[in-house]
């Protein structure tokens, strides 16, 4: 039961008080801070519950942090999530398998290619064509995923630094990110959320002049990434803010199901690209970056050095590229459209249209049936995982034999990693909460799906 404090004639309309079963609740929507503080001070209640609401510049997206404070020390942290819940998993049940890619790509919007890759790997497992994916498609997938890893880490570093007060690294990080977004645009047509990786391979082949441009961009990235590194690594203020903050050691990580840079900051070199390789990762030579300190600084260093390792992988991928098909050979599954950029935008290439309308009836039928109905996937379930920049991203796909997925569930790494905020932050200062959330690097689209 709540009673409003109507006895006070000077009741502040912006800072009302009400009594609830949990004690007094103060709603502060403006008004005089000093008045409020004196009133709270008068109640002898030392613990204050503060809501770092869903709209806040320092919480990575729409995350609601409910902090119980004793002075400046945080005694309890609870996360309120669900503010970005989109019902993607239910929506996919009404779309065909290929259309599912367009939905899935928007879950973890900083790492769209990883979402697509996990989904497509699971669907290909169900179809049983994992071995028939052409090598060129796998190499392009690896290349795009590694570029995506770099761009995601850049956003993590930039926004993490921004939240802790360092404004310049964000500008540097986003400058680098523009280079990578140019790569995506050149290859897929879109800067973000391109439904490019499809079950069976990738949607279209690389443009002809892509490889020399990509090599140039990799060279440019190598030199530019050093700028961000120089700004923050060894920076006294940065280290004071991040060393020893948000400590989560190995037993903590394992019991909380935390994977990714947070797990690797404890010293365990667990990286799915090495331990359970997919898409041909076993053929690439790269190191798994770990740190020993289990704190924010360690995770930050891991992200910086992982970007360098990703550049190594991309160079190896560019060397491995050989001409070939990019879609599986089975015409009953392969996405039929050959897209090309023409005067009025991206659409079916004229060659393809000439073929299906003029020469091959089968191509026409395949194109029609695959685009309208989609292919059928035999019944069963599969769980495919990729190592996304945030941890293990798993796609659990259940099929009932039809053209639409029966159930798609994503095990998003941010969802599990965010649970560990309480373990990391209780007992620390409010500013450390911000650093901890920045080091986990949650993407709320993936958390809430």
């Amino acid at each position, binding site marked *: 039961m709540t009673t409003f404090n109507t006895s006070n004639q000077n009741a502040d309309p912006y800072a009302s008080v009400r009594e609830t079963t949990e004690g007094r609740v103060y709603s502060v*929507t*403006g008004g005089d801070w000093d008045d409020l503080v004196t009133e709270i001070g008068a109640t002898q209640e030392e613990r204050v519950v503060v809501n770092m*609401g*869903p*709209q*806040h*510049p320092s919480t990575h*997206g*729409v995350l609601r942090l409910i902090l119980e404070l004793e002075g400046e020390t945080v005694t309890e942290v609870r996360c309120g999530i*669900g*503010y*970005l*819940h*989109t*019902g*993607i998993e*239910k*929506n996919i049940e009404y779309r065909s398998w290929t259309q599912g890619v*367009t*939905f899935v790509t*928007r879950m973890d*919007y*900083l790492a769209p290619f990883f979402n697509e890759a996990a989904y497509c790997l699971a669907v290909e497992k169900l179809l049983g064509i994992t071995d028939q994916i052409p090598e060129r498609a796998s190499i392009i997938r690896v290349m795009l995923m590694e570029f995506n890893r770099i761009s995601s880490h850049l*956003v993590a570093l930039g*926004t993490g630094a921004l939240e802790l007060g360092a404004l310049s690294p*964000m*500008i*540097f990080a*986003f*400058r680098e*990110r*523009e280079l990578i*977004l140019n790569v995506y645009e050149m290859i897929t047509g879109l*800067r*973000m*959320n391109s439904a490019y990786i499809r079950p069976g391979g990738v949607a279209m082949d690389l443009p002809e002049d892509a490889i020399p441009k990509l090599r140039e961009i990799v060279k440019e990235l190598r030199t530019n990434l050093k700028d961000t590194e120089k700004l923050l690594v060894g920076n006294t203020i940065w280290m004071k803010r991040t060393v020893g903050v948000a400590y989560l050691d190995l037993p903590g990580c394992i019991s909380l199901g935390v994977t990714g840079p947070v797990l690797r900051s404890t010293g365990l070199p667990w990286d799915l690209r090495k331990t359970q390789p997919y898409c041909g990762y076993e053929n690439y030579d790269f190191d798994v970056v770990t740190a020993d300190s289990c704190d924010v600084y360690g995770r930050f260093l891991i992200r910086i050095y992982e970007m360098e390792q990703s550049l190594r992988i991309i160079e190896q991928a560019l060397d491995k590229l050989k001409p070939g098909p990019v879609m599986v050979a089975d015409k009953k599954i392969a996405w039929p459209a050959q897209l090309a950029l023409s005067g009025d935008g991206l659409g079916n290439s004229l060659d393809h249209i000439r073929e299906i309308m003029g020469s091959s009836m089968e191509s026409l039928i395949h194109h029609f049936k695959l685009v309208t109905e989609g292919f059928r996937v035999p019944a069963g379930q599969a769980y495919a995982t990729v190592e996304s920049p945030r941890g293990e991203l798993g796609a659990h796909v259940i099929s009932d034999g039809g053209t639409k997925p029966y159930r798609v569930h994503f095990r998003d790494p941010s969802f599990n990693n965010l649970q560990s905020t309480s373990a990391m932050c209780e007992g620390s200062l409010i500013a450390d909460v911000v650093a901890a959330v920045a080091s986990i690097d949650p993407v*709320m*689209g993936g958390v*809430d799906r």
Partner: protein
Amino acid sequence: MGIEEKLPSGFLLTSVEKLAGYMRKNSLWPATFGLACCAIEMMAAGAGRYDLARFGMEVFRASPRQADLMIVAGRVSNKMAPVLRQIYDQMAEPKWVIAMGACASSGGMFNNYAIVQGVDHVVPVDIYLPGCPPRPEMLMDAILKLHEQIGNEKLGINREMIVREVEAAALAALPTHQMKGLLA
């Protein structure tokens, strides 16, 4: 040197409306309301390559009380809608809203139980910006169109007249379900 050199006898005449419009549009401060993917493109628009600072808008105010413009960037879920309305209410007049992206304009590709089908169900929107996500250049185009709108806004009695005219026009206009387009 500038405009002050070219003035005849050193006097510049203008109307209060034009002056107020000029001041308002050249220092619009956006409030951070980045929700999902469009927020990343909004951040890219504020970063070095597509620079919003050229309009004086690179300071994304954390507090809505200091902001003029709310760029709703991303999908608004049913749980987030009351928060959106509260932030809008906390902004001081004059305020404008850009619905950035397909999800904010109309629910986008997510036509389901969880997403508000268009942020105009919750707040009045001035500019709808389609795209999934719209490029930073598209966002800047929307901002420039908004600048034009703001620069031409009327004050006082003129504003009331305009509002009445717009309402009369809207009441007399053809309803959307009677517009036939190419399908009739």
